[in-house]
């Protein structure tokens, strides 16, 4: 490890954000928490229109024309998909089915334990409100270190591979899934994503710990909890009952948020997961009961496009099969739902999992030497190529230094455009919030502040046009990211032991979407790994990977004051080591068709 790398890694211990406190969110309409018993009683009662129209349904829309997911639909959608677990501890259990009837019996055990959208959403609202009021990251822990029961939860989700659906529901039903990538599986698409083509190289699919041609998982169970002991108890129950029913565990891996100030950061040291699309739709027609809270005032010019500053609203069909989708030309109107799936799969979501090992030392060694070559501080250099400082503060709003207060301001840290000056937002009244007084982002149309290759500019070009359309099209590419780090952290550690340096660490990348090909694969291959798309300027230096007949070298363009400098990367900082393409069905299908009902 280079000395500059050691200094940077130790220094990142203080890369946390200064959280808002004393903010009272507007009260959302009270709704019923949907527990398992209630869900069972209400399956079949749907309150959104279905293309087939076979069920007793009442089509309802909000005043904004967004779909309403009533109690039954909210109890059918998995909470891991909407709104997402976002827990500090998660275990991903990759399974292979044994005898089909045994697996079906186990699904009947599992189904009532799957967290619903309703229960996770209710929890999330209470948790978020407490967090902003108290100014602490985890209000589920009291001042004395004891967990607060009502702000503590343990949740479970389940997803299936195409092979599993073929086995459990039959080939005819499986064949109704139109997403060809899902049907092929991740291993078959591996080289398309830039993974190594040489079997001798780390990252080749034959070497994956799970998800390779010889060890593809058929089911993925995710357990998420605030407390480690709760997690372990739930995981033990999942694994023991699965074994009793003939299932085999291929891999059971724990992910944890990084400790202390680095909570929410990935292993390179940067805050992750700040920018997520806001899902359109509501649980009732009562104002304030939207799935994604609306904080922009009606007089804000972008009020119809964003939930809070910088959080675009996306039609739910981008993540839930059978729902109104994003129109590629006009973000305010819905496009027709997909019908390329079996009817029972409606309200389900494709789930992409990638186990990505991260070479933290290699990343910072390269950043240090490349930064020295262009005479820039290594953290500033790496932050520009990420697009955010380690705290999460965007370089577009703070070009020259990290800004923990900006990073901690939920209403400011994601509020920026790339091409034009970003205007202040007009917000609904938020008691206790002093307003966004941070420096506004200035237009960077020539990408001198945030390079075109920067990670966040690659994966979400925001207001820019791309190779594939206007900003409206970009909204069709967004995913719900649900990842969590695994392995012991190196950032924030002074004088780490050789064993700690060598330990494996990385990201369990998890993302939900309605088209693997048009969302995850499109962004990965066509943007992240491309030198000239969505804008010419090199590959994403953080996660981009290219395999040109075994050659892994790639280029990044750095906008130096004296002109563009092309920098060469020969090492991979991220290496795929496993994963899979899965489908998280509506809960009614878990103990329904998939369980042989």
């Amino acid at each position, binding site marked *: 490890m280079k000395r500059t790398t050691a200094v940077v890694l130790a220094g990142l211990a203080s890369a946390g954000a200064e959280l808002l406190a004393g903010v009272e969110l507007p009260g959302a309409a009270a709704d019923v928490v949907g527990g398992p018993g209630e869900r069972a009683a209400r399956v079949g009662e749907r309150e959104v229109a279905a293309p087939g129209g076979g069920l007793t349904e009442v089509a309802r829309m909000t005043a904004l024309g967004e779909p309403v997911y009533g109690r039954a639909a909210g109890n059918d959608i998995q909470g891991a998909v909407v709104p997402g677990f976002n827990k500090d501890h998660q275990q991903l259990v990759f399974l292979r089915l044994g005898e089909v009837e045994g697996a079906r019996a186990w699904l009947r055990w599992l189904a009532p334990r799957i967290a619903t959208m309703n229960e996770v959403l209710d929890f999330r609202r209470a948790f978020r409100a407490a967090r902003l009021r108290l100014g602490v990251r985890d209000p589920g822990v009291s001042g004395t270190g004891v967990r607060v029961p009502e702000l503590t939860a343990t949740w479970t989700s389940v997803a299936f591979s195409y092979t599993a659906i073929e086995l459990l529901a039959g080939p005819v039903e499986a064949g109704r899934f139109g997403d060809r990538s899902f049907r092929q599986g991740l291993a078959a698409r591996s080289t398309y994503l830039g993974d190594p*083509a040489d079997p001798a190289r780390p990252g080749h699919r034959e070497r994956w710990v799970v998800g390779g041609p010889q060890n593809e998982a058929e089911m993925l169970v995710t357990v998420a909890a605030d407390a480690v002991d709760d997690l372990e108890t739930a995981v033990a129950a999942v694994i023991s009952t699965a074994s009793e029913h003939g299932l085999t565990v291929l891999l059971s891996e724990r992910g944890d948020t990084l400790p202390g100030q680095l909570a929410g950061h990935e292993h390179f040291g940067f805050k992750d997961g700040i920018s997520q699309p806001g899902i359109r739709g509501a649980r009732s027609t009562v104002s304030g009961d939207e799935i994604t809270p609306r904080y922009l005032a009606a007089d804000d010019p972008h009020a119809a496009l964003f939930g809070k500053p910088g959080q675009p609203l996306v039609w739910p069909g981008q993540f839930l099969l059978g729902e109104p989708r994003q129109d590629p030309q006009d*973000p305010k109107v819905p496009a027709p739902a997909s019908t390329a799936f079996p009817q029972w799969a409606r309200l389900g979501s494709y789930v992409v999992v990638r186990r990505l090992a991260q070479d933290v030392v290699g990343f910072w060694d390269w950043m240090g030497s490349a930064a020295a070559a262009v005479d820039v501080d290594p953290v500033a250099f790496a932050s520009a190529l990420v697009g955010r400082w380690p705290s999460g503060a965007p370089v577009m709003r703070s070009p020259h230094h990290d800004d923990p207060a900006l990073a901690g301001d939920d209403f400011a840290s994601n509020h920026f455009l790339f091409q034009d000056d970003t205007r202040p937002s007009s917000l609904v009244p938020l008691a206790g919030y002093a307003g966004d007084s941070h420096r506004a982002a200035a237009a960077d149309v020539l990408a001198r502040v945030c390079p075109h290759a920067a990670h966040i500019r690659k994966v979400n070009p925001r207001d820019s046009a791309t190779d594939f359309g*206007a900003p409206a099209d970009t909204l069709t590419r967004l995913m719900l990211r649900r990842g969590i780090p695994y392995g012991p952290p190196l950032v924030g550690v002074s004088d780490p032991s050789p064993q700690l340096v060598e330990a494996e660490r990385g990201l369990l990348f998890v993302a939900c979407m309605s088209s693997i090909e048009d969302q995850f694969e499109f962004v990965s291959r066509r943007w992240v790994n*491309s030198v000239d798309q969505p804008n010419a300027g090199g590959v994403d230096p953080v996660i981009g990977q290219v395999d*040109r007949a075994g050659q892994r070298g790639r280029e990044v363009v750095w906008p130096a004051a004296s002109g563009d400098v092309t920098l060469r990367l020969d090492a991979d900082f991220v290496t795929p080591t496993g994963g899979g393409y899965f489908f998280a069905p509506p809960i009614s299908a878990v103990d329904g068709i998939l369980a042989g009902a």
Partner: protein
Amino acid sequence: MALLTFDTPGHVRDLPQGAPFYGEWHRTVERLIGTSIAVSGRGRYVDPSRRDVELVGRRLYTWTGFPRPLLVEHRDDRRAAWVAGESRDVQIEYLEWRVERAGDTITRITFTTETPEYWKALAAADRGRVLRLYRELVSPEVREGDLFPGGAAYDPLNRWNTTDGIVHYVMRINSLRDLLGVSQESEPTRRARDGYDALPYKRRTGADARLNLDIWALSRRGYAVSTDDTPGLYIAGWDDTGWEKPDGTPVGGYWRVVRGRPGAALRVVYEVPESEGFAVGDIRIGGRRIEFGGQVAEHVTVSAHGLVGRSPR
């Protein structure tokens, strides 16, 4: 920077250096560029052959070769998009291609970004040269009467550029005129202050969105925008990484730039050398066999080159 003299696309030298044709070509391009047309905001579209531009940067406008409208139309059935995309009538992203097969297997895909304007100008200057180029590029069987029916003017829709071959664009709105026209359009509302304000964006092609939105954004910042030398449409590159031979190993470099140069190609052929023992149609992209030219066109980047600068009013 000095005023530009518009050279031929890709600096091709189909006629001897110094031939009057090159001056004629410059004037052809000039006629297509409306001088100093307002784009939107404070910026201006300028004719760099007439107005000096203080250069701030060069801009490579890039987009994808496969027609975006087909992928939007067939959102849930990509194969249907590939099937539809085989017709040059719908190859609307300034990239046209022709597929040749042996039986059901693709053996060669020829891509072009050449404009009808250029070939018409060349034909007006030297018919014999056009005939020789057609024979070289398409088939030795091309006869003068095929290209100049009845001895009249050059026919851009002749059989060797449509049913039996490919030389330059035939799709209705693929042309240098259309490229330059899109480049000079104003933002319709004239009120947009950012890319979101410019929505909904009605046009469906990737090329239009790329050129319009990028130029509008530059223009709002007060930049002068114009075409760089040489004006034209180019194949900027292709991405065949991860493509696999029938044995699962990575493909070789089977691309051949026939006109233009790598990075700014006008005519490119994708064809597996005979020594490899398999054909294009045996290659797999992400585990899927190449059955249609569009599967390859999706990985071809098309580009136009622009100048960004400051121009005195």
